[in-house]
């Protein structure tokens, strides 16, 4: 848990929250006595614990590893959270000298907690295998790996060994895909392209 007094603004927010909590308990006491206060206290405590565990995600920095490989070699990381269209493969081949295809098993938290993410892992592997096979058919130097459940973490792991001078993302449609691409752009100081189609 972070120190609530890390800044003047944070200290003021903490003061306001404490005053609000006191007001809630006072109102509960006035309304119904000890039992009501107890219920209010339990609810407030639950809210505090939930808030503390959820955390407040601060703004992280965009980072990039040192270039890996010969100076003029361009390496491309492809994150395949959706199947990559065959029409895009020539463009990916031409964009780099070496390509690493990464996919994160998109299992929900409950599935992961129950260790029931085999289907998600198989789907991720299928996406990787299909994309790598398609690239190799076009004479691209391509390889693939199924990474961490978190796509951003999967990219970080891949950047550690493969490097990567640019990232191409085949993201889910809609808001989920837009959020994923935004997270990647904010996290990595590398050119990030979203693959459509």
């Amino acid at each position, binding site marked *: 848990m*972070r*120190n609530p007094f*890390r*800044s003047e*603004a944070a200290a003021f927010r903490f003061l306001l929250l404490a005053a609000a909590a006191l007001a809630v308990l006072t109102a509960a006491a006035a309304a119904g006595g000890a039992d009501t206060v107890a219920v209010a206290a339990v609810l407030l405590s639950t809210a505090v614990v939930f808030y503390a565990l959820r955390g*407040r*995600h*601060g*703004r*992280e*920095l*965009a*980072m*990039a*590893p*040192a*270039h890996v490989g010969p*100076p003029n070699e361009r390496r491309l990381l492809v994150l395949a959270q959706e199947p990559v269209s065959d029409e895009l493969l020539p463009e990916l081949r031409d964009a780099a000298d070496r390509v690493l295809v990464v996919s994160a098993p998109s299992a929900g938290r409950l599935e992961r907690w129950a260790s029931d993410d085999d289907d998600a892992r198989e789907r991720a592997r299928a996406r990787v295998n299909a994309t790598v096979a398609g690239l190799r058919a076009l004479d691209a130097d391509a390889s693939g790996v199924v990474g961490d459940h978190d796509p951003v973490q999967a990219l*970080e792991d891949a*950047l*550690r060994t493969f490097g990567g*001078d640019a990232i191409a993302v085949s993201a889910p449609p809609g808001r989920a895909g837009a959020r994923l691409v935004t997270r990647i752009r904010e996290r990595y*100081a590398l*050119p990030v392209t979203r693959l459509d189609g």
Partner: protein
Amino acid sequence: MRARQPRLSPQPWPWPGPRVLIEHADAEATADVVAALRGGGFAVAVCRGPEHDSRCPLAVEDGCAAAEGADVVVSWLGLTTAAARESLAALRRRLPATPLLVVANAGEAAWWPKLVENAVVLEGRPSPEQVVSSVRSLREEAREGA
């Protein structure tokens, strides 16, 4: 009501060094410099500096994992605003041994001699090659002095 901006919470470096932290208000403007530093063998982090009413974590008690893990810091926030000067002063105070490259407008550094003491100063708009060269020199000096 203005949307609340998330506070700065720099993460630790996930990759080995040598590492360069660039502080620049416009992250997109650093793309060429980032590419040049990466090509020179440096891992790079880009910090846009404190925004709106937030403060640099070095200036408050949070600390900054990215600055603490950097081999060289390139301060490109300028010296014009109080927030930028506070960030630089906090960096000097908390990490006095970290080599520092300051990029400032022409003539600006002369107004703040204490802030740029023992730092390398580049004025105007240095090229990516100039930045890489300066970073390399700073790092070499630091290693020789160690």
